[in-house]
């Protein structure tokens, strides 16, 4: 009953407010060596729009790459030295926009917004002059120059497939044993209950490894998505995430009494949040605080961000150690809970 009446309310709220592809208050970095009247007023205009928020001002071109790798900013606006002078003398100036295109949708939106703000400024200062000013914007899409969608969905699909195979299948097969009555005989045997469960989980761990391999092979050779970072790290993180999913599956199986329940819990409690809150479909940054808080307990969010960093941006463990630790913590927590909840008897 609650599901019937509550579902539309929750969905309207989530879809209406939280899950928008619109980008708000994106953090940007500014490199402005000229610091003249034109750049200052242009920066002020950018900051005044609700799309951008200047996160940091940098002082050299070398700083650009590292701050992108940290993942703090989505866009960098780079002015040349003598921006105003160029504009006044040659009626022409250049601005470079560098976007983090590991999420191509967001990158595209952001560069469009930025260009619009710059054009708007250009038109305003030109309005009372005969000879028009032109500000050329030059764009660079970092990590994904061709703005390929695959760069975005490969990490997302990996998170989804692993979660589906491991969590749902593990939960369902164990609950199936309960339904068929085979669990009853297995319990009345010297087999340790924990060994039964591990034995049920191992095949899915192997299956998932095959899945990881096939997704990676397909994305490299068919979709031309490169693995820029360390393959070993990527595989390690994927296995870690697989284990978290397995632990979740075990936890569900200890609670669910029928295969339908197990499937329902897996879908509602795991699959939907993974699709909506992992950042794969909708950017997490734009969600209201409550949803952003909830998204932190979705394991896929952390895995998705790790895969993007390692695979697309090509950065190492030093940049994803926080996410890795969170996943490890989740693994310990869920596994502990699953073992604690495992029933050594029937009821």
């Amino acid at each position: 009953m609650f599901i019937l009446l509550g579902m539309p309310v929750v969905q309207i709220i989530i879809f209406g407010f939280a899950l928008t592809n619109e980008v708000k208050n994106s953090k940007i970095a500014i490199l402005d060596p000229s610091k003249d009247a034109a750049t200052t007023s242009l920066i002020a205009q950018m900051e005044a729009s609700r799309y951008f928020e200047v996160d940091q001002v940098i002082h050299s071109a070398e700083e650009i790459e590292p701050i992108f790798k940290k993942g703090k900013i989505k866009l960098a606006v780079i002015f040349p030295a003598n921006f105003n002078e160029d504009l006044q003398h040659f009626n022409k100036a250049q601005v470079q926009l560098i976007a983090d295109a590991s999420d191509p949708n967001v990158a595209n939106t952001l560069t469009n917004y930025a260009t619009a703000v710059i054009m708007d400024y250009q038109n305003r200062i030109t309005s009372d002059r005969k000879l028009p000013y032109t500000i050329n914007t030059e764009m660079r899409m970092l990590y994904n120059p061709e703005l390929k969608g695959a760069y975005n969905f490969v990490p997302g699909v990996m998170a989804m497939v692993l979660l589906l195979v491991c969590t749902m299948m593990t939960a369902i097969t164990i609950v199936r044993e309960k339904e068929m009555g085979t669990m009853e005989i297995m319990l009345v045997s010297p087999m340790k209950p924990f060994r039964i469960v591990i034995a049920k989980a191992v095949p899915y761990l192997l299956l998932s490894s095959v899945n990881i391999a096939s997704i990676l092979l397909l994305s490299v050779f068919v979709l031309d998505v490169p693995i820029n970072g360390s393959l070993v790290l990527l595989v390690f993180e994927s296995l870690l995430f697989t284990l978290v999913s397995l632990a979740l599956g075990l936890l569900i199986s200890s609670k669910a009494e029928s295969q339908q329940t197990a499937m329902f819990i897996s879908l509602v409690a795991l699959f939907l949040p993974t699709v909506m809150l992992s950042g794969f479909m909708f950017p997490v940054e734009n969600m209201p605080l409550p949803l952003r808080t909830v998204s932190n307990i979705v394991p896929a969010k952390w895995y998705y961000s790790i895969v993007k960093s390692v695979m697309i941006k090509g950065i190492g463990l030093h940049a994803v150690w926080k996410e890795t630790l969170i996943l490890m913590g989740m693994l310990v927590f869920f596994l502990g809970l699953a073992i604690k909840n495992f029933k050594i008897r029937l009821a």
Partner: protein
Amino acid sequence: MKSVVVNNISKRYGSKKAVTTALRGISFEVDKGELFGIIGPDGAGKTSLFRILTTLLLAEEGTATVDGLDVVKAYKAIRQRVGYMPGRFSLYQDLTVKENLDFFATIFNTSVEENYDLIKDIYSQIEPFKDRKAGKLSGGMKQKLALSCALIHRPSVLFLDEPTTGVDAVSRKEFWEMLRKLKEQQITILVSTPYMDEASLCDKVALIQSGKILSIDTPEGVVRSFGKKIIAVKSSNMLNLLADLKKTELLEDAYPFGEYHHAVLKNESNEHELKNYLQQKGYPFEIKGTDPNIEDCFMALMKN
């Protein structure tokens, strides 16, 4: 040492609002190597009792030991040494006969060869079908396979929960013959069944109804304690006959029994009066005295 001791066991299901009491203070003992039958209708609490003894459920009250081991504290040790065959066929349906047997031998840390002599008589009957999937076997063959799997580790106590339910008459007879042979191996067997005619095949029987034990005795003892005269009556219209039998004051009870109705006389000397009563009804009938058997005793016990 007693093989199984049950002391004042009670089991309830459900929360505070809707409590179902499955067992109400049950106590009994089973000797080593005994074939102990627990007879009772569906819902009497047989399965609950078996699950408590096989450490699958916890009783709310009372204690029980199997092989001298407490079912709560020593559940791990008990799981090593009992054989259990649940009421529902619970083997892997998508494995073949042989695969199931090998699988259960492995999880009990033994091999099929090691205890083959114990299951030889039973398993040889299904061996021709050893490559067939367990789910595709007939009811009787499924039971034989399940029994083989429950015996593969040479258990000291065997729990069989309604092993003959849903099995044809011939297979049922064969099954009981197998149990008698197992007894010779000094395996204690607890078997539950809703069929009263199977009671006479046990060494000792406990009649259970609504979670209470009505009587525990040898089958002969149960019959001896009956102490009432039974008359078998037959007529062309059995339905009218039963109605008439139920009306008369001369009888304690009347119920259908095979092709006859059994009438329990209140007073042994009343046989002649019953004959007169039925002659007044004006239809042909056949009447004869008969010895009470175990079913008559149970009918009487359950009525009280």
